């Protein structure tokens, strides 16, 4: 049990706890931001400025009765929220959130702030995103109810359609960075041009960033692409029949997927933990600020834009976003060949 091993285990536990608290924080932030966008105040009573509201929500969810429809398939009904939540957490295992650090000399070798350092990290994230489809489609099927089945099938068809544009947007960044490891991609964005413009890939790949964010919003089933779980349309889509902690797991999975998409976007496009003024070992503060900004953008989108209808959503994904991402990839490849970026 060297100090290095202890530090690695502590890091894993800390990432897990941080993800759980980020989900709780997202609950609060969503309600507060929604309130301010709608010119009201939001949660105020529970705790100072309503900060304990997520705690109240969790306690309420825990005390609800755990229902299971009699005609539901027992094993799959219990398995679906587990798959959703596990895939959501697992994707964060390969995302680095800070520079290598020795914690001010406590460790003899530098520890990467990443739970698992794989050199095909980008592909692993893509793979786990494809696995999260199963949670939804199994939830829809096992509930044995028309609303759930339709919601589940529509939602999973939407997710696999937008995965293509997601991957093509990633491929544009890979052409720039020449590596599949997220740490290498972030390190390729250090430094500045002309002294003040940071070398982030968002300036080299603006269309790729927009495609990635749009596909990310569609992948996580958030508005304006949340038709399959819209209250007005399909009762609640694939999680109609779930209550109490199973519903909480779907809820949790959705928020953590949002955090993962934001974290990967920060690493790929916004320079990860590089930023002015702070020394390298405090880079994770910049990381958190950037992820927070993208999450705010997510919530802002939800409460500003109207929802896409399902056929409009699928037409947009296949007929607009996919060609744009392919053309972006072609232009990037041509530029890399021409200018030797």
């Amino acid at each position, binding site marked *: 049990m060297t100090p290095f091993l202890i530090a690695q285990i502590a890091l894993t536990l800390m990432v897990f706890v941080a993800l759980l608290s980020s989900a709780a924080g997202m609950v609060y932030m969503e309600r507060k931001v929604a309130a301010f966008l709608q010119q009201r105040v939001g949660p105020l009573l529970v705790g100072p400025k309503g900060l304990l509201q997520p705690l109240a929500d969790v306690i309420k969810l825990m005390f609800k009765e755990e229902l299971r429809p009699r005609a539901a*398939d027992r*094993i*799959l009904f219990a398995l679906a929220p587990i798959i959703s939540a596990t895939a959501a957490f697992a994707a964060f295992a390969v995302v680095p959130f800070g520079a290598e650090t020795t914690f001010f000399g406590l460790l003899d070798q530098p520890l990467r702030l990443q739970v698992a350092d*794989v*050199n*095909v990290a980008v*592909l*692993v994230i*893509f*793979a*786990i995103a*494809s*696995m999260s*489809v*199963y949670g939804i*489609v*199994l939830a829809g*099927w096992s509930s044995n109810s028309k609303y759930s*089945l339709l919601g589940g*099938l529509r939602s*999973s*068809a939407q997710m*696999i359609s937008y995965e293509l544009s997601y991957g093509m947007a990633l491929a544009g960044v890979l052409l720039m960075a020449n590596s*599949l490891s997220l740490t290498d991609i972030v390190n390729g964005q250090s430094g500045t041009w002309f002294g003040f413009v940071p070398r982030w890939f968002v300036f080299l790949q603006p269309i790729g960033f927009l495609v990635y964010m749009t596909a990310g919003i569609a992948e996580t089933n958030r508005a304006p692409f949340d038709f399959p779980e819209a209250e007005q349309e399909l009762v609640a889509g694939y999680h109609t029949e779930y209550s109490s902690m199973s519903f909480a797991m779907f809820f949790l999975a959705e928020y953590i997927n949002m955090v993962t998409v934001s974290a990967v976007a920060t690493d790929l496009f916004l320079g990860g933990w590089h930023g002015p003024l702070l020394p390298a070992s405090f880079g994770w503060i910049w990381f958190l600020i950037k992820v927070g900004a993208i999450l705010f953008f997510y919530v802002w989108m939800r409460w500003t834009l109207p929802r896409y209808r399902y056929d409009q959503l699928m037409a947009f994904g296949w007929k607009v976003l996919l060609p744009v991402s392919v053309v972006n990839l072609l232009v990037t490849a041509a530029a890399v060949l021409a200018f030797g970026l």
Partner: protein
Amino acid sequence: MTLFYLFGGVAVITSLLVIAQRNPIYSVLLLIASFGALSGLYILLDAPFAAVIQIIVYAGAIMVLFLFVVMLLNAPHEDTDLDIRVHPMLHPGAMRLGAVLAVALVGELIWALTNSNVSGSFPAGPVVSVATIGRRLFTEYAFPFEVTSVLILVAMVGAVVMAKQDSAAKGKR
């Protein structure tokens, strides 16, 4: 070595369960577990690219297709016109002969493997990087690569055409 036994055991047991299940949805899910175990075996063989594309392509795309088809067909279980109590694997006649032939095949393959001169252990070597694979794909294997893309296009068009409702038949009905 324990990891090899773990992944190999999971792969074999889930594959056996795949062919033994009545409900096709359980078969599909068990096959996904088997693919996960195989992906672990590829990582043990220093092939991270094969491991990841196994999850992305097989477990993440092909099995979703299977699952969709099973759900949309909502097919009855296969033994509705036979006695429900007898498990499909226990029916007499041609099926038992098939199982016996499969066991014979296992025996032959084990005999062939144990009596061959294939050298045992793996040579020490670096992990093949994705860059090497990519370079080879576009230089030596460029023709199969392009042909594969045409193949996928043909398969896509063919699948859509075959699964479409026949509009003439629909009009008559």
